[in-house]
């Protein structure tokens, strides 16, 4: 594909835009197809689908992806029949269109140099074609679209042509000017003009917007008559042209007068009726996410600098008049407000609505429910809730698995549902909302719910718990997130393979979130995912350990208590636990946690603080010297200039300019231990 005279990188960028456009277009087509119910020809929806296919075809042709253009052309032709009501919408028709979308998706992905299933594409294309044949009156529907070029006859060599060009009065109204044509002819060869003023009216009657002149043109060029007439293609209905070859025995002057071309198809004003509704292109631009990250970094530094300024002034107070101090305070507080607003505004740029991933699921549910012979409806709410782009990207797969799980294990077959007194069609509800500084996404179904007994049994079987261990219902249900757990008797093709709930949980925890399940037997289950709004900052609790300051993410802190020596216990193997309201929590001396040279373990925990944190569903107590203040910290990655260190989430710069490490609470509890009470060292 030629680069149109542009640099490779410029063309690549444009191709990428096209690729993204195709992706969006295919999503629109798919959404439209799913929305069409049998027999319901909603014109707006059909038009959206048609326009989507048409756009992709046009772009593909322009950028040289002929296979996509050809495929889409067939699709578009068939869609046109639907649009003109010559073909009614029916489930098998929708199915073949959905298959076409799949083929196109594969072809679009292959634009980057991969490959796609050609056999499948040919089959679907043939399917589309056979549908077309069923439509009465379809003759040349699959003919190649007309291009502007007409067949050329080989050039006879340099010839001399006489061209008489006589424009109509209204010639100029189409924006054409004779000069355009003269220039065009001049490119073919040598041109000499002779203007004819004979039709020029008297001054009084002269109207400047009308054309009164005609021309006799002599052209010496190595061209055919067709090539000359081509140049008049645009204006053929606006003028009279006579082209004769000089020095050639005349058979007779050839007129090319435009015949009245009446369209054979009745061009109704259908198009006028079909106004496109819905989302319109709202003036946006695509920005490289790296640029946004640079911006975010700078703003992050501003926040740090501003808090350093705050700290400095508060330490150096008292050295100036009270009035100046008050003014300074005012300015600083204004600065702080502005900085925070700027930070929020910039973080907002990275926010995208969850609909961008929620949009995938209707199709999944449609496909999967057919496959499983179940009737399932997917309800979506809160799709405009916004999340940070990176968090959004990483939540897609876990959500996918949860929905598959609901489809596979949650919702019962129609027969079972009816027997249980439920509606035949099961409902999966996917929702998102902002709740208290986090985003909560819920996947709930009205299916059979978790079988607590079965889970308990399996867990004992797999050695995940001891058979005498007593767990609450909630704790038992939570076992589904343990590694190696699957209650499926038969590993179904759908959700059993590879990915397990433990991966879902760890993926969610990787982005700083939490996932829990609540269930009612016979009624259904709800998986609740709590996510941080952003990955760049977090609310932290500063703590002091010896002479170092660390930050613990506030989200992970359950509570903090002053150590009560009576509640400490040492159990087998030097492990220390703390008894808190009936629960026994293992505790770690933070001095030992990161075993930094020169810092010794505590001899006594007296007067120390205990920070109880949640790691997965486990609670752990961290022994620290003191609790300092809480505030928002900007997370600086260690990977920028160093490497990722397990156990460390990142670093942050405190108000006094020093660097503080942020504790990665999720890695504190090992999930690979087999025996209770034993420590597993890495």
């Amino acid at each position, binding site marked *: 594909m030629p680069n*149109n*005279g*542009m640099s490779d990188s*410029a063309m690549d*960028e*444009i*191709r990428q*835009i*096209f690729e993204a*456009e195709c992706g969006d277009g295919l999503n629109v087509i798919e959404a439209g197809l799913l929305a069409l119910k049998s027999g319901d020809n909603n014109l707006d929806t059909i038009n959206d689908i048609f*326009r989507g296919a*048409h*756009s992709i*075809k*046009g*772009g593909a*042709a*322009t*950028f*040289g992806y002929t296979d996509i253009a050809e495929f889409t052309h067939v699709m578009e032709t068939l869609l046109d029949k639907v649009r003109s009501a010559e073909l009614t919408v029916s489930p098998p028709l929708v199915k073949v269109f959905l298959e076409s979308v799949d083929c196109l998706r594969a072809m679009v992905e292959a634009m980057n140099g991969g490959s796609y299933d050609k056999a499948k594409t040919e089959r679907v294309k043939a399917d589309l074609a056979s549908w077309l044949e069923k439509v009465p009156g379809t003759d040349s529907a699959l003919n190649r*679209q*007309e*291009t*502007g070029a007409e067949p050329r006859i080989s050039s006879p060599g340099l010839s001399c042509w006489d061209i008489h060009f006589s424009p109509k009065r209204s010639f*100029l*109204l*189409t*924006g*054409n*000017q004779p*000069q*355009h044509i003269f*220039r*065009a002819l001049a*490119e073919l060869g040598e041109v000499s003009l002779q203007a004819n003023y004979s039709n020029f009216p008297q001054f009084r009657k002269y109207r400047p*917007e009308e054309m009164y002149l005609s021309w006799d043109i002599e052209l010496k060029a190595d061209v055919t008559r067709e090539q000359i007439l081509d140049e008049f*293609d*645009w204006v053929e*209905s606006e003028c009279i042209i006579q082209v004769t070859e000089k020095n050639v025995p005349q058979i007779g002057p050839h007129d090319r007068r435009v015949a009245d*071309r009446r*369209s*054979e*198809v009745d*061009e109704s004003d259908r*198009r006028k009726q079909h106004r*496109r509704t819905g989302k*319109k*292109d709202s003036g946006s631009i695509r920005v490289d996410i790296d640029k946004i990250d640079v911006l975010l970094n700078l703003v992050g530094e501003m926040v740090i600098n501003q808090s350093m300024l705050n700290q400095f002034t508060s330490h150096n107070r008292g050295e100036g008049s009270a009035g100046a101090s008050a003014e300074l305070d005012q300015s600083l507080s204004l600065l702080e407000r502005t900085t925070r607003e700027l930070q929020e505004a910039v973080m907002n740029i990275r926010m995208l609505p969850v609909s961008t991933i929620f949009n995938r699921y209707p199709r999944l549910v449609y496909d999967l429910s057919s496959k499983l012979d179940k009737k399932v409806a997917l309800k979506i709410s809160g799709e405009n809730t916004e999340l940070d782009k990176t968090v959004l990207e990483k939540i897609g797969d876990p959500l996918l698995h949860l929905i598959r799980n609901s489809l596979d294990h949650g919702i019962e077959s129609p027969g079972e549902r009816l027997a249980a007194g439920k509606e035949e069609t099961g409902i999966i509800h996917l929702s998102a909302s902002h709740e208290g500084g986090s985003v909560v996404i819920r996947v709930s179904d009205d299916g059979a719910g978790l079988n607590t007994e079965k889970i308990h049994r399996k867990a004992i079987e797999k050695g995940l718990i001891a058979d005498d261990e007593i767990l609450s219902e909630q704790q038992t249900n939570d076992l589904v997130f343990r590694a190696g757990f699957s209650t499926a008797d038969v590993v179904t093709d759908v959700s059993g393979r590879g990915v397990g709930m433990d991966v879902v949980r760890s993926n969610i925890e990787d982005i700083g979130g939490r996932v829990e399940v609540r269930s009612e037997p016979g009624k259904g289950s709800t998986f609740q995912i709590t996510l941080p709004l952003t990955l760049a900052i977090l609310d932290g609790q500063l703590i002091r350990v010896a002479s170092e300051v660390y930050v613990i993410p506030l989200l992970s802190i359950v509570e903090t208590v002053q150590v009560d020596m009576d509640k400490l216990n040492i159990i087998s193997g030097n492990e220390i636990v703390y008894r808190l309201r009936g629960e026994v929590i293992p505790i770690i001396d933070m001095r030992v946690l990161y075993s930094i040279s020169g810092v010794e373990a505590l001899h006594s925990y007296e007067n120390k603080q205990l920070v109880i944190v949640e790691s997965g569903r486990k609670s752990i107590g961290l022994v620290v010297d003191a609790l300092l203040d809480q505030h928002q910290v900007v997370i600086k990655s260690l990977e920028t200039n160093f490497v990722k260190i397990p156990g460390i989430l990142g670093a942050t710069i405190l108000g006094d300019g020093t660097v503080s490490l942020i504790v990665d609470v999720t890695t504190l509890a090992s999930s690979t231990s087999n025996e209770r009470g034993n420590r597993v060292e890495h």
Partner: protein
Amino acid sequence: MSQVLIVDDSHSIRALLSSVLEKAGFEVTSANDGKAGLKAARTTSYDLVITDVNMPEMDGIELLRNLRGLPEYSFKPILILTTEFSQEMKQKGKDAGATGWLVKPFDPEKLINVISRILH
């Protein structure tokens, strides 16, 4: 420098056309549908308008008619850029007042040629 207005709902086509035209020395403005195109044309007097046909809000044909209704654009060259071009389409374009048409896929060199003739 000649000013060209491009109206097309496809971002990639707009990007491609802008690139090609700017490289050839034209000043390019783009709009993403007929309505936006009409608004732009009202604000600035362009030397040439190139518009797609199938667009939301206002299609190319209607844009064409509206433009021709503006005194400023009665005699300006307005080209239609579109995929298939049947005779009926050509006629419809003509009836609406199109100066000419360009078919996708287009040869950029040819495109520049044609435009250069018009915007000499």
